[in-house]
């Protein structure tokens, strides 16, 4: 079945798809977004139920292989030590993300020049800074201005409370003389634009029933839909089609809610399916012109997959830390070990994030994203009564380096419910990252002791967290050279002049911060570049 052609077709209604739609609104072009999932209705938020924690292990797991909802696609992660996690629906993974909102730092965009690793980006921090600012306003970001870890900027809202846990750790950082700062968060510290401020419920991964968290289901999409952007949900794109004569993208084939195949033509196609979904779609869109996958003459589609491998260290304190009160991921962030220092034996660096503790069930089952239940019997009693309430921890979030062998390919057998080949992840931890994580664990231990921990809980193995694939980057990287990159400095495919990619797959390097503020700043920048170059867009 064919539909009326549109000017701009965006695939994916997550963080980046929403941001670029907003940027293109003023062009008055006809914009359509196809999203494989649905809107989340108010009754769907499990945090309104008494047994809300159960949802974390079922229909609201961050792992699509656990959820197995109709809109999810399976991911084969057997050849990886980390599995990607996500949400598929309006808002994308900002539905279950935790709202930690640090920016990348100026040095992150120049790792080749500064440290001889990765590649330099074709854009820099200062080019993106105004777009970070616009996006912070649109999203409602809380934080404290004047962080000496960055060029000057001030988030629009005051910081959320750092709480007892944050204050305790902050004193430890001061004791050590190390950098720390209250986290920037895309979480409202004050009511704003009809959205309620954060009520410190601590279940940000279960969607935010208050509307305080900056998921695009609460921020951009209500604005966009009322401004006339068409959002067609439960529509899964099977392939992007190209015109064999012009080499331009002409539109897509997608499965609608009826399961049938539909055709949608468009002048300009924007892919925003995230660092796994985007290479999957391009690889599934092979044709005579592009036998190895659409826009893949460089061979780089799917390669250089980066996560932020992480590990955690937890201390037991004398007083209850009330770690379950407040947004899950964000209290304070230290970037003391962020920049390269050759004396440490590795390049680049990591952040130390204060992790709040979780609710009792999640703790008993091993922690967020971990399937390793704590001991039973007398030891269980001791842990739950005398350890759990007194915990405060630090998460070591490391910078992954781009390595071609870490990649997304198509699984030869596994498919989603529409029969579309599923992605397969091949990923192993680099030696540099391993050293970084070890260094981080040691520093985190020192810090917790300085902050007053009476005991440090040891980890029984040297594994990274399995479900730490929250951030998926690098699989369609930007660059000036068409032989080594998939898109140019403003997101346009080198090979297909009316095809743009705007999600985390275009990252050149990963930095050691959560990526979404940068993903959206980039999407706004790409939207701006499209507007600036509109006369010569397809040349």
């Amino acid at each position, binding site marked *: 079945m064919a539909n009326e052609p549109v000017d701009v077709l965006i695939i994916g209604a997550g963080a980046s798809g929403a941001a670029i739609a907003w940027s293109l609104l003023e062009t008055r072009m006809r914009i359509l977004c196809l999203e494989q999932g649905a809107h989340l209705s108010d009754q769907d938020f499990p*945090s*309104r*139920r*008494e*047994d809300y*924690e*159960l949802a974390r*292990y079922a229909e609201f797991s961050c792992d699509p292989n656990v959820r197995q909802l109709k809109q999810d696609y399976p991911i084969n992660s057997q050849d990886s030590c980390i599995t990607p996690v996500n949400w598929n629906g309006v808002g994308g993974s900002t539905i279950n993300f935790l709202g930690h909102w640090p920016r990348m*730092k*100026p*040095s992150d*965009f*120049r790792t080749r*020049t500064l440290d001889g690793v990765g590649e330099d980006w074709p854009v*820099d*921090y*200062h080019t993106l800074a105004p777009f970070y600012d616009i996006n912070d306003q649109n999203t409602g970001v809380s934080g*404290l201005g*004047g962080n*000496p*870890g*960055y*060029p000057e900027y001030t988030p629009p809202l*005051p*910081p959320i*409370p*750092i709480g007892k846990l944050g*204050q305790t750790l*902050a*004193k430890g950082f*001061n004791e050590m003389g190390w*950098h*720390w*700062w209250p986290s920037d968060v895309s979480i409202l*510290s004050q009511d704003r634009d009809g959205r309620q401020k*954060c*009520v*410190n*419920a*601590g*279940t940000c991964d279960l969607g935010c*029933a*208050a509307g305080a968290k900056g998921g695009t289901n609460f921020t951009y999409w209500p604005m966009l839909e009322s401004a006339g952007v068409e959002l067609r949900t439960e529509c899964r794109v099977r392939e992007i089609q190209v015109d064999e004569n012009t080499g331009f993208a002409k539109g897509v084939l997608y499965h609608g809610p009826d399961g049938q195949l539909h055709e949608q033509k468009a002048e300009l196609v924007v892919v925003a399916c995230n660092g796994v979904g985007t290479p999957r779609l391009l690889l599934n869109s092979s044709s005579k012109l592009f036998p190895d996958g659409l826009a893949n003459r460089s061979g780089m589609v799917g390669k250089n997959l980066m996560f932020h491998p992480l590990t955690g260290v937890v201390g037991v304190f004398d007083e*209850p830390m*009330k770690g379950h*009160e*407040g947004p899950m991921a964000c209290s304070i962030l230290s*970037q003391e070990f*962020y*920049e390269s220092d050759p004396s440490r034996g590795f390049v680049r660096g990591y952040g130390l994030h204060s992790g709040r503790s979780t*609710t*009792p*069930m999640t703790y*008993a089952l091993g922690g967020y994203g971990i399937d390793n*239940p704590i001991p*039973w*019997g007398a030891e*269980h*009693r001791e842990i739950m*009564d005398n350890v759990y309430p007194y915990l405060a921890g630090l998460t070591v979030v490391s910078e992954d380096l781009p390595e071609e062998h870490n990649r997304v390919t198509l699984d030869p057998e596994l498919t989603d419910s529409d029969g579309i080949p599923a992605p397969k992840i091949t990923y192993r931890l680099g030696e540099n990252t391993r050293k970084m994580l070890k260094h981080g664990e040691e520093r985190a231990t020192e810090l917790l002791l300085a902050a007053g921990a009476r005991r440090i809980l040891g980890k029984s193995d040297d594994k990274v967290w399995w479900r730490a694939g929250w951030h998926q980057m690098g699989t369609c990287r930007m660059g000036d050279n068409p032989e080594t990159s998939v898109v140019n400095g403003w997101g346009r495919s080198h090979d297909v002049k009316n095809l743009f990619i705007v999600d985390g797959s275009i990252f050149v390097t990963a930095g050691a911060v959560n990526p979404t503020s940068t993903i959206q700043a980039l999407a706004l920048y790409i939207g701006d570049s499209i507007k600036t170059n509109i006369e010569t867009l397809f040349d």
Partner: protein
Amino acid sequence: MENWTGRERTQLDAILDQLIPANRDRNIPAAGELGIADFLTAEANQNSDLCAAVSALLAKAAKLEGGTSPDVVRQLEAALPREFKKLLIATYKGYYSRPDMRACFGVGEHPVHPEGYGVPPEPPEVIAELTAPVRARGPFYRDPAR
């Protein structure tokens, strides 16, 4: 439909009491006495893997001597580790999804939305004092453009 009754139910309750024992001083009940077997029964009826695991563990337990002491439960764990882990996970889920049990560990009984928790924001002067040593160090980043 699985419904462990009679001897099996008594045995299941006894095993659950070992997995999460009571804290009598703080009036925290053990998992068996709290009736977590009912939760397991309901779950097992939706999940054939769990049903098979619990049934296998009960069959094995019936053959072991010595009542249901921690040692016997340890033997069960050693003999059927995969099944035991399934039971353990389901037991923790059943026990800690009870609002009254959450409250024993300082976590609210209420659904966390809409009420949440009242955490007062720190007064700006407290944050200013805490961050003073960090600010005193001055700019702390590399900027290749400057």
